[in-house]
C-alpha cells in the first residue's frame, strides 16, 4: 500500500535554529498538508498546498513557517527560528483530491526544541 514517508523520525534542535522537515507524499497525489500534534493533544491543521501554492493556512502558520515542493517528489516544512512551543509531532499528509476524500498521513517527525 502506498505510504507518505517523513524524515527524520525525530529531530532535536536548539531554540532559534532553523529546521526543515521533509515529506515524500504518495506519487500521484495532488494535495499536500502539514498538521501538528503537541504531545497528548489534538491534531491541528497548519497548511494545505495545491498546484504549488498555499491554499489554506491556520493562525499557527505564521511568518516563521514556510512550505515548499522543491521537486516532483518532496514536500518540506521549514521553521525559521524555532521556539520551545514548536516542540510537537509534525505530520505530513497527501490526498488525491481534497480533504473530503480522506488523507493519507505519514508517521510523523517528532521535533524537540531545547
Amino acid at each position, binding site marked *: 500500500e502506498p505510504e*507518505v514517508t517523513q524524515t527524520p523520525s525525530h529531530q532535536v534542535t536548539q531554540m532559534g535554529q532553523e529546521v526543515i522537515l521533509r515529506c515524500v507524499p504518495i506519487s500521484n497525489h495532488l*494535495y499536500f*498538508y502539514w*498538521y501538528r500534534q503537541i504531545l497528548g*493533544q*489534538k*491534531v*491541528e*491543521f497548519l497548511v*494545505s498546498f*495545491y498546484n504549488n501554492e498555499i*491554499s*489554506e493556512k*491556520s493562525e499557527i502558520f505564521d511568518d516563521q513557517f514556510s512550505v515548499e515542493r522543491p521537486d516532483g517528489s518532496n514536500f518540506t516544512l521549514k521553521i525559521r527560528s524555532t521556539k520551545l512551543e514548536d516542540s510537537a509531532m509534525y*505530520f505530513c*499528509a497527501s490526498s488525491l483530491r*481534497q*480533504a*473530503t476524500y*480522506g*488523507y*493519507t*498521513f*505519514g*508517521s*510523523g517527525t517528532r521535533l524537540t526544541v531545547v
Partner: protein
Amino acid sequence: QQQVKQSPQSLIVQKGGISIINCAYENTAFDYFPWYQQFPGKGPALLIAIRPDVSEKKEGRFTISFNKSAKQFSLHIMDSQPGDSATYFCAVVKTSYDKVIFGPGTSLSVIP
C-alpha cells in the same frame, strides 16, 4: 474556540463489547464527518466517514450514527478487539476549506 467536542477522553472496554465514542460540533456549515484511528508512533488513518445526508453508515464492525439536528455523531465499534486499542479522533470538514478540524481524541483500551 473549540469547534469539536469529543467524549469520553478515555474508554476501557472488554473484548467482545461495544465501544461508543461521541462527538459534537458547533458550526452547521460542516459537511463531511470522518473518524480517524491513531496507533502509537503512527499518523492518524481514516477509519470511516459520513456525509450529513445520511443518518448511519456501517463498514464492518464500525458504524457512524449521525444526528444533524443535534449536531452530534458517534462511532460504534462492535465486537471490540484488543487490536482496536488506539486513539480515535472525530473530525469535521467544510468542503470549501481544504482542512480537517480534529476533536481532542479518545484513548480506547480493549482488554481481553
